[in-house]
């Protein structure tokens, strides 16, 4: 990846900012004049990973585009907590149409900009995992296939959170949700289901696909900036913990996201036109158990006796990711 780790400056690129770094080497978030595209007063839960991810991504996009970003949002947590009449937290031009059509609406906005000769204005579509991978899948695939000039950002909190934590095709195996409750012979979500949307996006051979996490801001910002400099259909999939839905401590949101990355369960990588071009190598690998223990949605794995097979199966997924994406060494 293009991101250069900076040495010898106490915290390198791991912190958001650093008084010893030149301003241009700090993150967008460190800037006193960052756009705060998603401003205070929104109704997200305490410690919401999606609120954080959205501000990170949109601020980075604003920086990269000279503050010329328009966003189209699918129905979901982000949309609901940010625009309850009479208040909106968005500082940018923003619209919400329906649950499943963010990609298509964004394509329409992009077409309008093109027609009006405004190629400097960048269009972003945003949606949760439900709105992107399930109900919005058709429109998303259509947008990819047409190579519309839209950056689609999916905030993946692994369930339909806004309606009360129901299972989506992004829900990981064994996770408890309201529609995959932790009861019966196979508590939680079952194995053998689910989609990998980044890989599906790659299969569409679109110009740019990347995964990112709120635990690695620099990486996220680099990827957004890179995507903003490319035309055509682009997709970024950001992992955002939901303290309420995952049953984690709101103060742990970034830690949980970090564990997901460092265990290998959520690999960070980039691809262009269907070929992988880079990945984040794990800094300090952790066993999946450290990640799972932080979340009540996996609490049923740690009863008496613990579900060793289940945990091992999840570890196997992480191991496969590490192997497949080359996350070590």
């Amino acid at each position, binding site marked *: 990846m293009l991101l250069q780790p900076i040495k010898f400056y106490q915290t390198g690129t791991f912190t958001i900012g650093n*008084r010893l770094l030149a301003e241009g080497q700090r993150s967008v978030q460190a800037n006193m004049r960052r756009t705060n595209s998603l401003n205070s007063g929104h109704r997200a839960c305490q*410690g919401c990973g999606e609120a954080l991810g959205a501000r990170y991504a949109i601020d980075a996009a604003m920086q990269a585009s000279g503050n010329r970003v328009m966003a189209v949002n699918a129905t979901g947590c982000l949309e609901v907590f940010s625009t309850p009449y009479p208040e909106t937290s968005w500082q940018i031009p923003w619209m919400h149409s329906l649950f499943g059509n963010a990609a298509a609406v964004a394509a329409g906005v992009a077409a309008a900009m093109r027609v009006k000769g405004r190629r400097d204005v960048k269009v972003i579509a945003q949606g949760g995992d439900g709105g992107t991978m399930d109900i919005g899948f058709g429109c998303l695939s259509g947008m990819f296939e047409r190579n519309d000039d839209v950056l689609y950002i999916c905030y993946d909190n692994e369930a339909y959170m806004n309606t009360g934590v129901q299972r989506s095709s992004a829900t990981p195996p064994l996770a408890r949700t309201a529609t995959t409750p932790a009861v019966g012979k196979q508590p939680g979500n079952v194995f053998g289901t689910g989609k990998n949307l980044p890989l599906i996006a790659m299969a569409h051979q679109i110009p740019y696909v990347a995964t990112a996490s709120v635990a690695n801001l620099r990486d996220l910002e680099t990827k957004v900036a890179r995507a903003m400099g490319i035309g055509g259909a682009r997709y970024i999939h950001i992992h955002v913990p939901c303290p309420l839905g995952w049953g984690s401590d709101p103060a742990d949101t970034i830690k949980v996201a970090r564990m997901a990355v460092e265990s290998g369960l959520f690999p960070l990588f980039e691809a262009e036109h269907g070929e992988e071009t880079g990945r984040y190598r794990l800094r300090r690998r952790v066993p999946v158990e450290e990640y799972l223990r932080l979340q009540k949605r996996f609490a049923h794995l740690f009863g008496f006796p613990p579900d060793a097979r289940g945990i091992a199966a999840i570890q196997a997924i992480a191991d496969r990711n590490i192997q497949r994406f080359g996350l070590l060494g």
Partner: protein
Amino acid sequence: MTMTKPFAITLDPGSSLANRTGTWRTQRPVYVDRLPPCNNACPAGEDIQGWLYQAESGDYEAAWRTLTLDNPLPAVMGRVCYRPCEDACNRSKLDAAVGINSVERFLGDEAIKHGWKFAAPGTESVKRVLVIGAGPSGLSAAYHLRRLGHRVRIAEAGPLAGGMMRFGIPQYRLPRDVLDAEVQRIVDLGVEIEFNRKVTNILDTMQQGKFDAAFLAVGAHIAKRAYIPAGAAARMLDALSVLRGMEGEEKPMLGRRVVVYGGGNTALDVARTAKRLGATEAIIVYRRTREKMAAHDFEVEEALQEGVMIKWLSTIKNMADEGTLTVEKMALDETGFPQPTGEFETLEADSLVLALGQDVDLSLLNGVPGLAIKDGTVQVGPNMMTGHAGIFAGGDMVPAERTVTVAVGHGKKAARHIDAWLRGGVHAPAPKHELAEFEKLNPWYYTDAPKTVRPVLDLARRTSTFEEVVQGLNETNALFEARRCLSCGNCFECDNCYGVCPDNAVIKLGPGKRFEFNYDYCKGCGLCVSECPCGAITMVPETI
């Protein structure tokens, strides 16, 4: 052009600011300053984290000035201090402790190189304070008292200032020009030193000189003796006089084979000095084992590298005229105490140097009422005052660990109490902050950065000259070392809190001004606390 927006469906940006989500909180974050373990461990009370912070941005003069608010002798300290700060450093739990001592030395050397001077005292008082002894404790007390505006005179019994720094620590550990420069800087502040002035009666001297208070720092310069029968021609000396002799024109003649009796740093210093003077053999005889040695292990290591030999578990019984020593082997009993075994051997030596400890010359205190003397040292209260009002004491002459750093710390502490006493009040030290333990940090954020090792003079040169063995860091390395500091418990403006708040409820006030919470919107989630690398934020419950 502002459009007429359809009712309710379309909203203006910024309208969410009307929703003060701060009302959701049950707990709120507050910025705190915690006590870094290095600051906590420093006997001189230096604000180590504070001056490292300034050094990190290349502000060496500012860093030096912060440092010297507490300790006027950084170039010396950077060479002779045993670094309890580094032992306490939280970084050692990550990779290795920060080279605080190296950076201190660098700053001290920079100050000498650039000729930085202390700022003149802000006020002038009419009070006169007498300091006995121009060793580290006396110099420190004089410096601090002078900064507080008092008129200070040091009475030094010897011909030069420095105390044990000059007459106890060899040149290869502390070059004399460095010591001279730092002493001179204190003198330039307005401190008078009277040399070759041994005070025999403190009360008389105070009265004659109209001193309002006195700080005694005579040190411990009397060598302890052991009963070792020796022939009339046997050459038996004590360590202090050997080391003192090194400062004169004629160096001590120790001969080819030198035996040093004792297990402290002084013994090592003598042995290594002997090597440099040309001894082919320098042997330390010590009654216990290496782990029990009072000397610091790295100094033992350096000595061994230089060819000093050590005979463990041995005591010296007597010394014959020709220089033959009778040595008895010892064995440690269950309590770790050496017991004679009854086995003897001989050891040839041209000279035997006794390094068995030091005692204090308390004669100047004769006739002073109210003093409490125990185990050869003067008892002092927490305010460094002896039993006699107006007479304070510190350094090796009071019960304490005997190091230069401790002595410097005593001087500072005493000066503050003397100042308060002179004004008829009491100095109450500020309450300490909570300790910034490692568990309070989020170490994920610190870059992997192994410690820089100070370059060491090669062995050949070490044993033939008195050049400094351990050299300092150059600027790049010193800067790197300083930047390894985790800034435990003290905000170093990494912007993490500003960046991780999902509600934009942290206000960045600008470089050097840190941050403020916007309690109108803070929901109390605690992400800032979790992600603060140095543990400078804590949650407190909200009150109704």
